[in-house]
């Protein structure tokens, strides 16, 4: 089970809800992914076209935990405001802190992320900051009381996979809160690797929504994350430089 704050989850896949080809495909992808946590963004409503369909309205919100993000925030203050807006919906008390510090790479602003995390922990939120794969920052976020750290594998939406598995494993080794690899996952192999490194979960969006068949990819990600987790728990064999025969050397009927 994945435990975040006081909440328990069977699934270790957290799914984003952006950029799907259609609501129908998205709904089906959510179902087959078996994800229990779905991320959302908070935006102004177009009140003059309010009849436009909204994905959240098509979901049974009792079946999922909503993880709103603070995307769009450039400062801690903006992130805290978005978090409070999200919480006032009465639908959630988890928040993904996302404070972007660079428009081109969408990498997070470490200082503002830490400030926002400190403030939101004080306010009683369940706080999951999206961070770079910085080992020291991950520790400081943990000391600030966050309920999970979410290091990026590579830039958001890039699908480059895990660029720095060494840093990621350092973060995982020292963590006392769950580590959820967030952003940059491109393929099931990337997700499985994150889990084999010992991550507690994976948050992804574009890897599913931009796949040729998002529903099939949602299933693939679910299985990859389960396989990676099992592999981690099983403990992989040690790597050797040379071959070691699997069949016995004795009793060969040759020579």
């Amino acid at each position, binding site marked *: 089970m994945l435990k975040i704050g006081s909440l328990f989850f069977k699934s270790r896949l957290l799914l984003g809800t952006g950029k799907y080809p259609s609501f129908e495909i998205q709904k089906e992808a959510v179902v087959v992914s078996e994800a229990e946590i779905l991320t959302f963004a908070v935006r*102004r*409503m177009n*009140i003059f076209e*309010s009849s436009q369909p909204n994905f959240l309205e098509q979901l049974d919100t009792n079946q999922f935990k909503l993880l709103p993000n603070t*995307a769009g925030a450039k400062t801690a203050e903006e992130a805290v405001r978005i978090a*409070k807006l999200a919480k006032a919906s009465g*639908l959630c008390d988890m928040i993904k802190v996302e404070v972007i510090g660079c428009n081109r790479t969408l990498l997070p602003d470490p200082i503002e992320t830490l400030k926002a995390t400190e403030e939101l922990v004080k306010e009683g939120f369940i706080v999951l900051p999206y961070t770079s794969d910085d080992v020291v920052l991950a520790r400081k976020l943990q000391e600030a009381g966050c309920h999970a750290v979410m290091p990026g594998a590579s830039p958001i939406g890039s699908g480059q996979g895990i660029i720095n598995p060494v840093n990621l494993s350092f973060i995982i080794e020292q963590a006392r809160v769950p580590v959820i690899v967030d952003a940059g996952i491109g393929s099931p192999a990337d997700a499985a690797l994150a889990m084999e490194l010992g991550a507690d979960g994976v948050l992804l*969006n574009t890897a599913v929504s931009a796949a040729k068949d998002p529903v099939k990819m949602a299933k693939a990600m679910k299985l990859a994350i389960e396989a990676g987790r099992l592999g981690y728990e099983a403990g992989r064999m040690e790597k050797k430089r040379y071959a070691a025969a699997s069949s016995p050397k004795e009793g060969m009927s040759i020579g």
Partner: protein
Amino acid sequence: MDVIVNGEWTQLPKNIGFVSELLKHFQIDNKVLVIEINGEILTSLEHQTTRISDKDKIEIVHFVGGG
């Protein structure tokens, strides 16, 4: 009464006094949304009891797809 809704000056009919009436006016009273008036965030329970005044700055936000 003139108010700023999501950054746009908007004229409201005279019979609108409370936030709940504003939501009915825009036909969004059955939507999942959050209202902020002049920087104060409201819970849904406060929609019935919070008055709207001339020149108020009103933000109406909701959840959209995102990662």
